[in-house]
């Protein structure tokens, strides 16, 4: 038996013993996700146990180094971990922007002190992070952002406004792009971290078409940020942001290794599937979805060895989000009038309809599909004037 087989056996046994039965079915909606943080209310004892047991072993962030709260798994071991999790349909013990986005940025750009401090908090689910990028006048054209940090010696005083800050009202800290030099567009932005409870920070949820408010407007009114709370060099925050956008696009594309082998058609059949044309649409969709899951796997394999085109995350983001929107259009069609229910108990308070509406943002947030296509044209296809 190889070392990896032995490792698989260990993981399987550990999961068998430690993953509560309630956590062995996919999350039905955002409500089932464990986000961690100071304000988070666990939905059940099982959810709490599952997160804490994983955190104790570093399994909330299995491929981070042990010194920073991870389990130090190498890529082959991390793949086994995902496969074994998928095998029992286990939910992720902890989800957060800290894990997906800030973590990778800190691992690459952070100081040793920052890594030990912030990554540990993320891994243990103690601090929930939000991302301050977009501004009212800077959406697709992110680099035109205006939020300004004035140099006051040992700290900056930040003034400005962010928009589309995911879960800002539930987050504990923010990683934020702030202009620190008005004379240089790209090399005048810094990547700052600060507490959302700092005096001068306020948030206002934005009611969306889904009836939910996952995004906020976030206002900064003379917020003081100590100088050591910067990631990377002064005025070089755009490098960090670009690196991170790659991760965000990867995440939104769904390439994170979710097991999508349960085809949408198989799901539809459980609800009765009598329309042959709908069935045909589902089959064509499943071809695309299964092919894309192979693409996700190939993309991750290639990233590990530096074979992926640096702009490939843009393709993944484009294709993955467009696919997800189609998935939810078809889920609505298979659900029929039952999927229209908005607040009934039986519909999970309208989870189908709300999720369907939510997915429309997939191809807007983190760079619109049109921007992704622009980037592919320019950086991969090298088309003129792109």
């Amino acid at each position, binding site marked *: 038996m190889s070392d990896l087989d032995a490792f698989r056996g260990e993981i399987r046994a550990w999961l068998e013993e430690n993953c509560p039965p309630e956590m062995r079915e996919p999350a039905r909606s955002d409500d089932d996700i464990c986000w961690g943080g100071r304000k988070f209310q666990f939905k059940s004892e099982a959810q709490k146990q599952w997160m804490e047991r994983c955190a104790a072993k570093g399994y909330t962030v299995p491929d981070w180094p042990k010194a920073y709260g991870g389990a130090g798994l190498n890529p082959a071991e991390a793949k086994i971990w995902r496969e074994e999790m998928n095998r029992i349909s286990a939910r992720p013990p902890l989800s957060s922007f800290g894990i997906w986005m800030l973590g990778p940025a800190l691992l690459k750009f952070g100081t040793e002190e920052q890594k030990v401090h912030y990554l540990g908090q993320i891994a243990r689910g103690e601090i929930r992070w939000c991302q301050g990028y977009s501004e009212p006048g800077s959406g697709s054209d992110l680099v035109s952002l205006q939020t300004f940090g004035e140099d006051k010696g040992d700290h900056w005083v930040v003034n400005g406004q962010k928009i589309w800050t995911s879960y800002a009202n539930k987050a504990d800290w923010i990683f934020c792009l702030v202009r620190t030099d008005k004379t240089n567009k790209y090399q005048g932005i810094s990547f700052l971290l600060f507490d959302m409870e700092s005096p001068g920070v306020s948030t206002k949820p934005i009611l969306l078409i889904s009836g939910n408010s996952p995004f906020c407007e976030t206002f900064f009114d003379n917020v003081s940020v100590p100088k050591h709370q910067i990631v990377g060099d002064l005025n070089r925050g755009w490098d960090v942001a670009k690196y991170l956008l790659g991760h965000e696009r990867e995440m939104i594309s769904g390439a994170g290794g979710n097991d999508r082998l349960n*085809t949408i*058609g*198989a799901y*539809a*059949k459980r609800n009765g*599937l009598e329309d042959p044309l709908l*069935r*045909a649409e*589902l*089959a*064509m969709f*499943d*071809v*695309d979805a*299964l*092919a*894309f899951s*192979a*693409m996700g*796997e*190939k*993309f991750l*394999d*290639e990233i*590990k*060895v530096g*074979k992926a085109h640096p702009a*490939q995350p843009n*393709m993944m983001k*484009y*294709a993955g989000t467009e696919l997800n929107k189609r998935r939810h259009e078809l889920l609505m069609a298979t659900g029929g009038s039952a999927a229209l229910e908005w607040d009934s108990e039986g519909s999970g308070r309208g989870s189908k309809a709300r999720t369907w509406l939510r997915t429309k943002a997939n191809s807007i947030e983190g760079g619109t599909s*049109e921007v*992704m*296509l*622009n980037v*592919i*044209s320019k950086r*991969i*296809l*090298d*088309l*003129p*004037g*792109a």
Partner: protein
Amino acid sequence: MALYHNEDQAMLADTARQFMGEEGTIAKQLRHWRDKSCKDGFGHALWKQFAELGFTGILVSEADGGLGMGNVEAGIVLEEIGRNLTPSPFLTSSVMAATALGGGNDELRGRYLPGLLAGDSVFAVAVDEGPKHRPERIATRAERAGNGFKLTGQKAFVVHGGSADMLVVAARTAGADDDQDGITLFAVPKDAAGLSQDAVRLVDSSMATHVKLDGVQVDADAVIGEVDAGRALLNRVLNAGRVGAAAESVGVAGGAFDMTTTYLKQRKQFGQLIGEFQALQHRASHLYSELEIARASVIKAQQLLDAGSEKAELMVAVAKAKAGKAASLAVKEGVQMHGGIGMTDEYDIGLYMKRDRALAEFMGDMYYHAERVAQLSGY
């Protein structure tokens, strides 16, 4: 296994790309043989060169003198074949017939494989009986007669049938037309009495035949594998053909795409390069995405097939359907973006469109394979 080529495979890809880019070009092969109205539709000298490079024996075991490689490696050659629209009997002979013969006994392999390895023999595979791929239904009968069997029925869309020294024929030795069981594969020599073929030239200038089996008498030693229990071997042959055709489609799509993006960077209208128009940029970028995803599905299917995984069946269907969809988009966008010259015979882009159409039908189109995805997924 990682979803990219390992070092040996990358070397093979370099060899195949260089060889096909020099010897298998549209000018030297496809147009040359087409304009001569060649009855084979391909060149035997090129087939000998395939043999010299070892390509003909990629899927033949080392014990039988081949390279003992897998569908990933066969697909590497097929992608380059697709990119250059190189006409050759590689897919029917070295992929499908070789897979069939791999399930045959020593005597049968000894009879046919040396000719294949040397590039002297060409084989064809006769499964379908109508204009659409429906291998679930096999009406051609083989009845026991004398020392062997007597085959009666007809086969359609037998690619390279007219050039083949031997046809792998799927026939029914038991049961009803739609039964899963009762299938036997036969190696039928081209000159067997009662075998007749009508040759037809297809839209892509390749040659196929309608085969008539009018009481064709073969000896018992023409049976490949087990009598009545040939369905599993037939499925292996079909899956190798499907994933191979998918790999070739990816090559066709890639060739059309490269021609098209090159054109976008050269052609000027309204005082600017047409590649500067965002309407075209976005369509080209969408096409790029589709091609990348198709390529991923194909290598995934190849690897699963080579590993003998139970998931291979589903992924092969996904790959054939997805590659077909992507290639169809690539050739349609290719012709449209070339504008008027895309409609001329002088430009190659139209040849890609024709090849794609033929490949799409071969071994099942995207609708057939989407249906398989549905069935294999339980709906």
